[in-house]
């Protein structure tokens, strides 16, 4: 057996340095990263990267910073298992492996010129944050921007400072809710779907971007359809098990679609007839 190094292997990694780690909640941390070779991660909001800890594993994680930020990129990681817990144990200055970006991301060019309704459930805010930051950076290219954010408890609220800021902005309509309040919570209580009827929007001119836990989609879509949103203007981002990110390993397949390659963002129209999607 001969063995050779293949630098052009699609599995090759780029080394990324952790500039900073910021705990957001008990389970989530925000990692600020730069490539060691000073190159820039060129991505679209909604795309993801494969993050590697050598000897432990490789996982898909959405990029959650603005694609226009040329200084660094960010990921928000919830500790649930092997790799994610190990990531949480790292410190600033540590090196991780990254390949990507992968997936299609949100169709920015299509959305521009329209109103945007963002609906985030829990960690779903991660990929959407990238879209929010992008639309704020390019505010004049979008119509009305509505952001609805929901999570289980106030303690699970992510990006609290930014939310504070968004909610103060005059050019954004921001609303937030929790399923279960605690004594300090002053805001809305209830499922995220309860916020939708209150949004004042022009259905024909609006794109909705929805990301959240699997159970959320069905109910949110029902509300959006009730509002009169056309099926091809509802954008959903899915989570599936992924190993390669390149449409080969077969793990993320939703019927004939590869979540990693054809998605993770799909219009409701694309998947509405697919039993395995929702």
């Amino acid at each position: 057996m001969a063995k050779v190094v293949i630098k052009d292997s699609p599995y090759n990694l780029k080394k990324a340095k952790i500039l900073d780690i910021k705990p957001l909640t008990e389970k989530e941390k925000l990692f600020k990263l730069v490539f060691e070779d000073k190159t820039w991660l060129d991505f679209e909001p909604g795309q993801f990267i494969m993050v590697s800890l050598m000897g432990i594993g490789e996982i898909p994680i959405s990029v959650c910073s603005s694609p226009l930020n040329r200084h660094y990129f960010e990921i928000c990681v919830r500790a649930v298992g092997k790799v994610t817990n190990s990531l949480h144990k790292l410190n600033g200055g540590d090196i991780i492996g990254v390949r990507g970006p992968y997936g299609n991301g949100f169709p920015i060019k299509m959305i521009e010129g329209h109103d945007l309704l963002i609906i985030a459930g829990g960690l779903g805010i991660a990929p959407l944050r990238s879209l929010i930051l992008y639309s704020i950076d390019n505010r004049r290219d979008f119509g009305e921007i509505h952001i609805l954010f929901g999570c289980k408890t106030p303690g699970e609220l992510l990006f609290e400072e930014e939310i504070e800021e968004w909610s103060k902005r005059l050019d954004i309509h921001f609303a937030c809710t929790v399923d279960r309040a605690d004594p300090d919570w002053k805001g809305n209580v209830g499922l995220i779907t309860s916020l939708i009827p209150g949004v004042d929007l022009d259905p024909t001119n609006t794109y909705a971007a929805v990301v959240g836990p699997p159970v959320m989609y069905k109910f949110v879509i029902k509300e959006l359809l009730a509002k009169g949103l056309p099926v091809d203007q509802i954008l959903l981002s899915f989570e599936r098990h992924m190993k390669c990110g390149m449409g080969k390993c077969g793990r993320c397949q939703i019927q004939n679609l590869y979540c990693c390659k054809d998605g993770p963002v799909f219009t409701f129209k694309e998947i509405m007839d697919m039993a395995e999607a929702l």
Partner: protein
Amino acid sequence: MKTEHYRILEKSKITDFLDKLNTISKVAAPVYKGFNNYAFQTIKSAEEVSLKYIPTVIPPKKYFLPTNESLLEFSLGNELKVEPTVEYENLILFGVHTCDIAGIRCLNMVLSDKPKDTAYLIRKKHITIIGLECNDYCDEFASCAFVGAHLPTTGYDLMFTELEDYFIVHIHSSKGSDIIEKTGLFKPAQTISMEELKALREKKSAIFNNEIPTERRYLPDLFDRSFNASIWKELEQKCLSCGNCTAVCPTCYCFDIKENVDLSLKVGERYRVWFSCQLDPFAKVAGGIDFRRERSARQRHRFYRKFRYHIDRYGMVFCTGCGRCSRTCMAGIKLKEVLTSLIRESEAKIWRKWL
């Protein structure tokens, strides 16, 4: 059929040929394992080879996409070092049936799709394929004529076809003709042998009847109607989720990626292993949600991946008719029966040959 692309090998010289092949490079060929089971194995001498065999337990895809393959090597000392690697060797595959050649063509399609799987392409370059045509069905499980894999088309370097008292050999590449040269056992083909070959093919078309009561071109339509067919529920009861059907399939290529570190925890490799959509952890994500929890959904997914999804994506049916999945299934789930049941259930419109 240009006569100059054909050669003749006396049957008595096949052993000589195999032994000579063995001096050129490593040779893998079908070997008998008992109980009507065969396996491609590297051989030491011609005696080990079974010229008459039914499809091996695992298809020769194992040489292209090893069951366990290192993707990256890394060391974690003061500095992180990562190197993607590939291991390959020169190998001659002898005796590959046309169904398995079709399987390799399917793999080529997927793994040379962008982003290209460099390691696969490098290994593929170093493998020579010598085909062996079947003159009759291997057993009742095969359905190669249905998918058109019973005749040699492309995908090989040399193709051996057994005639009455000699082999006629088609040279399909310069790699193939090199072997003809180096072994020096072949004679040029004459018009008469070409005619005999033609006669054989004609005879074959009578033997290799389509075994499934429809035609290949109706598959998309058939499957578009069958997502909720009752057969899937039946499979729910039967299937053991053992993953045998996918492991033996020449066109399955799903995998898992794992890590292996040495005891110092500093050096290691990332590797991939074959994996299967039939297994529990396949589609599970954090939080324990499994997107194909039911065995019925998994079995359905398997069939759709063979007969529907990849037709859109790659323009090919991803079944080669080798019959391995039916042969290996201890629960007795048989591909031909499943397809027939779909056709039976899918009322009208679908063109039916019989039923």
